[in-house]
């Protein structure tokens, strides 16, 4: 895996979403996308491209800020992990999808074993507990 230049933390996620052809999973306990127009556009365009995007937030408190998104949203109790992946690529980070000046790192997982371990964590620790959010 390779650490990202912090200036690219969000642009790389936008790229990952644009490159996806089958699905995108975004795990961000909290959300604040104001000012991230290209990221919002990339997420919402997946629906038109028939790419299934699932967005996971923390139960009760994580819904705030997701009203600009036109994708399937799921709530997970106690969620604090962050990970972003498609069928092709994966990024893990210390950051939520929030437009802030906070100091955060992100890593691109560039080996299949790393991708598989991350996906395994997602399937076992997050997806199992997720409940679709109904507006």
């Amino acid at each position, binding site marked *: *895996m390779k650490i990202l230049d912090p200036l690219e933390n969000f642009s790389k996620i936008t790229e990952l979403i644009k490159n996806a052809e089958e699905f995108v999973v975004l795990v961000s306990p909290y959300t604040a996308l104001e000012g991230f127009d290209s990221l919002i556009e990339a997420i919402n365009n997946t629906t038109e491209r028939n790419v299934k995007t699932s967005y996971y937030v923390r139960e009760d408190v994580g819904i705030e800020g997701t009203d600009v998104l036109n994708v399937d949203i799921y709530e997970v109790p106690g969620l604090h992990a962050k990970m972003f992946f498609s069928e092709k690529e994966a990024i893990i980070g210390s950051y939520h999808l929030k437009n802030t000046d906070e*100091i955060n790192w992100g890593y691109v997982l560039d080996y299949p074993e*790393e991708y598989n371990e*991350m996906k395994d964590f997602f399937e076992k620790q997050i997806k199992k507990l997720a409940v679709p959010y109904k507006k």
Partner: protein
Amino acid sequence: MKYVDVKENLNSIISMVENAEEYVVLVSPYSNLEGWDKFKNAINKATKSGVKVDYYVRVGDGYTGIEGIDVNLFEVPELHAKMFYSEKDALISSGNLANNPDINWVCILQTEQEKNELREFFNNHIKPVASKYEG
């Protein structure tokens, strides 16, 4: 890079502290160490044996929750990254050092390149903006 079994998240960090012979760097914007006596004991034992333990928190309220440990405490504005390393081992996590049931992952960095990238991130983005907490 390898994901830690979630049941071993805390133990993996304790092992890193116990293995250190020169220094330990703990970067946790927020903390709640209450109930983590094994972790606190490991830190205090390291300090007592001459290992330099530096603990970085977020400016403002990040210094609460770390009562009972003997470390060099630093504050960093807008800190949100989490990382824990010594001269030998390195871990990254989505979680703070906080005793709660939140869903978080911990990864062990296995290659020297991965460890060096993490230390470089710390030296470039965290250490230069850190200031000693005087209480």
